[in-house]
């Protein structure tokens, strides 16, 4: 009887086109939009050389040390910028057309920069010009100090200068870069998966409504049928859970293998989190359906509200997760959307799985609480009149 009821519940669910659109198709559409909009965001976040111009007039050419050192910053794979040598007029034209971020020109023995607007590229350019100008000054300074030290003695000025050039040019800072660069855009997709998961609460809500005599006519028929209520309820819930879990797995595989979203390599745990998220969503739908004695649409509004507010806190709209974590730290620790998002984030970013298991455990706990509360309310329901 259980499987018979399960089969027909699943069929009935699949025939509800609007329900299938919102819980299954909509997350796929949103994932496509996300991919189109965010595809290049990470590329922009990875540093790439930017375009500048250098006014290569007679005044500029005089300073050979600066010229040589500055041009090295525009060479090779590790270059900071792409340099275009030009005259002042052309550089101005390039700047006005937005083709370069700024240009460098000589004014007397000093270098100056002209830009169109403030920004990080412009600050990097300023720093680079300062650093190169500084190198020339350092050579002078080191050489002059050396000459001063040997005051009154015969010194080889040329050798001192050569030594100073050697000191400055061969000095490398001892910096160990331990950066672990990750794609921040992935979080948008994690929160999308979490949103899709919790939106699935509508499925179990719909399935439970079909068993509630005080809400639907079908519920009245179920109440008077000889079949055990537990069988009907559990088969209906399992049908909702099955559809949700399969659609989530399809969504994860679609985003991972078609759209190229990075989730990390732990596929079993990725699927486990989807299963636990689906469980929480199913229990939430069941809970809302049992507790709220109101219209079906009102219950769906509550599901959407819980999902959307949770998604906002989880960083779906503009990556504000950290902001909300600082503002209201407990929300993402109890919100299922926050827990699922954080679970995927920890699988992707952390090597240690402690945080993942805390999130997974909290989801199981929430599911258990919602289940117990729902069952308590569902048991021994009798109606004198409906």
């Amino acid at each position, binding site marked *: 009887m259980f499987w018979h009821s399960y089969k027909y519940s699943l069929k009935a669910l699949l025939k509800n086109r609007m329900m299938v659109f919102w819980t299954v198709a909509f997350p796929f559409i949103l994932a496509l939009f996300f991919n189109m909009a965010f595809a290049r965001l990470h590329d922009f976040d990875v*540093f790439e050389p930017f375009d500048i111009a250098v006014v290569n007039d007679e005044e500029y050419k005089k300073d050979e040390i600066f010229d040589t050192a500055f041009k090295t910053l525009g060479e090779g794979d590790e270059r900071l910028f792409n340099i275009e040598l030009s005259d002042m007029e052309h550089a101005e034209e390039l700047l006005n057309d937005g083709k370069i971020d700024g240009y460098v020109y000589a004014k007397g023995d000093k270098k100056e920069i002209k830009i169109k607007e403030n920004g*990080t590229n412009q600050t990097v350019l300023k720093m680079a010009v300062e650093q190169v100008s500084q190198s020339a000054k*350092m050579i002078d*300074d080191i050489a002059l100090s050396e000459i001063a030290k040997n005051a009154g003695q015969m010194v080889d000025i040329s050798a001192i200068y050569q030594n100073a050039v050697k000191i400055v040019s061969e000095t490398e*800072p001892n910096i160990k870069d331990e950066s672990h660069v990750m794609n*921040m855009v992935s979080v948008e997709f994690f929160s999308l998966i979490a949103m899709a998961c919790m939106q699935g609460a509508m499925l179990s809500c719909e399935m439970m409504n079909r068993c509630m005599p005080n809400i639907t006519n079908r519920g009245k028929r179920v109440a008077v049928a000889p079949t055990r209520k537990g069988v009907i309820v559990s088969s209906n819930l399992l049908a909702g859970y099955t559809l949700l879990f399969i659609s989530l797995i399809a969504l994860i595989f679609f985003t991972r293998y078609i759209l190229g979203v990075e989730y990390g390599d732990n596929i079993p745990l990725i699927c486990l989190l989807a299963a636990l998220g689906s469980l929480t969503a199913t229990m939430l739908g069941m809970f809302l359906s049992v507790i709220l004695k109101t219209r079906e649409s009102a219950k769906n509004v509550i599901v959407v509200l819980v999902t959307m507010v949770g998604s906002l806190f989880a960083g779906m709209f503009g990556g504000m*997760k950290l902001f909300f974590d600082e503002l209201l730290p407990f929300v993402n620790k109890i919100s299922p959307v926050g827990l699922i998002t954080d679970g995927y984030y920890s699988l992707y970013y952390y090597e240690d799985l402690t945080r993942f298991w805390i999130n997974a455990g909290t989801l199981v706990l929430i599911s258990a609480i919602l289940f117990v509360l729902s069952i308590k309310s569902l048991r021994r329901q009798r109606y004198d009149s409906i």
Partner: protein
Amino acid sequence: MIVSKAFWKIVLKNISSIITPTIILLLFGAISVSSTSSTSQFEAAEPSIVIFNHDENIGLTKNFIEYIDKHAEIKTDYEDDDRLKDALFYENVIAVVDIPENFHSDMTFNHNPEVKIRSSAGYSAELAKTMISRYLTTASAYAKTNISEQELISKIDAQMENSVEVSIDKAVDTSKYAKAERYFNFASYSILSCFITIICLIMSAFNRTQLRKRNLISSMDIKKMNRVLLKNCCLYSLAAWAFYFALSIFAIGADIMLTQYGLLFALNSLLFAGCATSIAYFISTFALDASAVNGVQIVIALGSSFLCGAFVPAQYLPDSVLAFAHVLPSYYYINANSKIAGLEAFDFDALLPILIEFAIVIGFSVLFIFLTNIVAKKRQKIA
């Protein structure tokens, strides 16, 4: 009168469909206002850096920290490693600098101590690394000349004081209009969402086969009824647009919105509101049911907003997406917003590119009105 009454009754019944995108717009407007900077003078970007100092805070170490403090924003309270990792991931912290034990003495005696850096991705991280590298290179070079720590500090300070003159070539400070640009770009979503939902729901109620047949045989002139419906749709659109404009004065500020720039933004959004009305009217001819209207609204409003740069600036969108966006009116509306925000003069030559965008949006409106007439005539014959 009966038609108008029914029209506004349905509007009030579906008021929640207007409230949601409006609240989102208001939130977005508030966020936009909080992020502005002037472009009339050069302002160096200051990356946020966390420092873990394992050395005593004296001598060269103290000088190094003071240097970072001068060029960056030093963040504290990140002892929890998970919190720090999260901050690095979300770029709330751009770089973490580990100053090793005995840094000041090792550097002074030319042992070139190793400084560890962990950074997020991107330009700000590169800036932070360049900044730190500059200090350490200077310190290491002078350390090779065997001077005392005090001399080393004064020489580094002297070098770091050398700065390059940066001038900004801009006739007008247009940066303050960037927030209005962001607000009105986002408004394209709210306008499309509100207009499609409400107009389609109303028209689908009037176009329901049974109701339409009743109206056709009633004493009311069907052309007059259509005219009244169209008039009320326009009235609703105008009221909604006026509300969004009033909201922009509240969210962005009267000092920006009640200027020539603000009025151009308003005119652009008015033309777009007209276009959105024609799109909504066109969709309504298909007599969709209420649940289908929500689906269509989501796909059109969200789709065109994502594809045309209402949520993510157009410069970050892939070329293929932008190429496709050319067939959507939102693209020209958002383009016009961007051109208005960057406008440096109010002469014909400067305004011409904006007027062209306006004309294209009007062209889309005319196209949808034309399509509505064709589809409506066909459907009337079927009915």
